[in-house]
């Protein structure tokens, strides 16, 4: 038996933990660069504020209804998420942290899962002020569906729904849109709709051969799961398979040297993250693109993968590869809005097979240099950089409505009378 625990309006809930005085007002959280709405509390939803609403277009409307606007504070959300996941893991044998605000748990062997989940829900609410919805079922796909029922009908379900009978399973499948089934992307949903499959029940009623032919074994597995036969197990949380540093710029960049300076900074953050988790990467992906939403400007986007001669976390090697990549994809005459550097194909630092042609000496020197860099930056703040990196504040993320880091910075903890 599985349960899916999902935090309600997670980012907005995090912003309200320390601000009960604004809980009755509409609350929204904006994306990086304060671009668009990525989270809303119930009041904001009732005002017909949508996910993806563009902030600067809705500014007046927000003011009119006294909407409380927050820039995304990922430090806070990360900490609260970690707290909640720790609490959940103390309630079960096995947990799969599926995303920042969702976790699957294994409830097999539990005599009274409903009661246990009620306790857990209450405990999370008491200790973190965050409300969760919980779906319980015999398979992960059904648990996800049960969770959707709990979320959609909070009053009837009190936030917990257990598909514990054949009758409930069929009722759920008749209700559940195929596009809302876990694992069915919008592309597949359209394809299925063309085949007259609209609800989960239609999918289950289709014959196995047909599903396998059109949607492969993965589609068939999904069918079994909807039928209540568990085939998907909890997955281990693995070390990060890739590390990405990507940003939108607050103004468009046209100049190669400006772009180069930006991606150098991304490369150095990437390399620092790699060293922190003691990984190396074997290739670097660089991408740049213009603003998708500016239909009036010429559009261009390009990415490139530069393999490294051997797995590496050296800031020098990564920056070198990044520059090389940028040089190859950069085109004059475009206004670039976003760029990023992604370290691909990560592996453990200790299991790297060294290229026999590379000078070991050189590598040892670079490693020592990188560690010194990290140490200095830890000690003095981010002050020591390669010459190609930028120094000023000019590229900082736009975050005009950031809340304090209540749980991670001593000088930002909540002030209480």
């Amino acid at each position, binding site marked *: 038996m599985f349960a899916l625990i999902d935090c309600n309006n997670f980012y907005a809930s995090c912003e309200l933990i320390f601000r009960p005085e604004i809980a009755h007002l509409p609350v929204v959280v904006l994306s990086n660069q304060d671009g668009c709405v990525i989270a809303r509390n119930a009041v904001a939803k009732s005002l017909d504020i949508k996910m993806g609403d563009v902030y600067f277009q809705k500014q007046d409307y927000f003011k009119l209804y006294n909407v409380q606007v927050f820039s995304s504070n990922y430090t806070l959300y990360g900490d609260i998420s970690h707290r909640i996941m720790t609490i959940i893991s103390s309630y079960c044998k096995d947990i799969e942290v599926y995303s920042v605000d969702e976790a699957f748990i294994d409830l097999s062997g539990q005599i009274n899962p409903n009661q246990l989940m009620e306790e857990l829900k209450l405990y999370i609410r008491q200790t*973190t002020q965050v409300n969760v919805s919980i779906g319980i079922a015999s398979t992960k796909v059904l648990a996800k569906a049960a969770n959707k029922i709990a979320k959609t009908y909070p009053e009837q379900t009190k936030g917990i729904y257990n598909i514990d009978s054949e009758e409930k399973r069929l009722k759920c499948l008749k209700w559940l849109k195929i596009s809302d089934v876990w694992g069915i992307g919008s592309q597949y949903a359209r394809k299925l709709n063309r085949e007259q499959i609209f609800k989960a029940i239609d999918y289950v009623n289709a014959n196995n051969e047909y599903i396998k032919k059109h949607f492969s074994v993965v589609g068939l597995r999904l069918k079994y799961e909807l039928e209540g036969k568990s085939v998907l197990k909890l997955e281990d949380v693995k070390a990060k398979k890739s590390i990405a540093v990507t940003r939108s710029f607050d103004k468009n960049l046209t100049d190669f040297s400006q772009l180069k300076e930006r991606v150098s900074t991304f490369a150095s953050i990437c390399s620092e993250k790699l060293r*922190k988790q003691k990984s190396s990467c074997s290739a670097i992906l660089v991408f740049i693109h213009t603003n998708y939403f500016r239909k009036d400007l010429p559009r261009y986007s390009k990415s*490139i993968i530069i*393999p490294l001669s051997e797995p590496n976390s050296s800031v020098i090697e990564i920056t070198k590869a990044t520059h090389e990549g940028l040089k190859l994809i950069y085109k004059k005459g475009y206004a670039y809005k976003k760029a990023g550097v992604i370290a691909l194909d990560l592996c453990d630092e200790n299991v790297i097979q060294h290229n026999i042609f590379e000078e070991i000496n050189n590598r040892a020197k670079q490693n020592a240099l990188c560690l010194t860099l990290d140490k200095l930056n830890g000690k003095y703040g981010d002050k020591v950089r390669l010459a190609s990196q930028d120094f000023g504040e000019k590229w900082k993320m736009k975050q005009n409505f950031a809340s304090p880091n209540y749980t991670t910075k001593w000088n930002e903890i*909540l002030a*209480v009378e």
Partner: protein
Amino acid sequence: MNINYIKPQDLFEGLEWIESKDLQRKYVNFYPSGVSAGFPKPTDDFIEHKLSLDERYAYNPETTFFVRLTGMSMYDTFLENDILIVHTDKRVENLQVGIFSVNGSKYTTKRLDIKNKLLLPDNKLFSTIAISETDVVNCLGRVIAFLRELT
């Protein structure tokens, strides 16, 4: 050097912000004099953990918050700028101090009087909050200790 191009749309659909997680820490026993055979240092049998404030005041980090006190309503139990250690997993029992929000107010530090249904300030110059049946009281947690830096 090999260069592989990939289609941009493949890239952007799957692209998302990834934060690197903290390394998993593992605690192991440390034997300063090594583990080789021979006559052991007699003190090795008496190695204990060092005293840790976390262990005593934040033993459940996932249910511990720190807040800074402002105002004088809890004088002289607390002074302005004291850092209160709040345990959110503990119920506030009679006459213990907690952080409360009444009917969606800002959080306030008060002593709970369960018998008389009151939230009491320790400073008598401040007013008491009476709690009726219809009031909604939200409790962030119980104040279990405080830190005060001496100047």
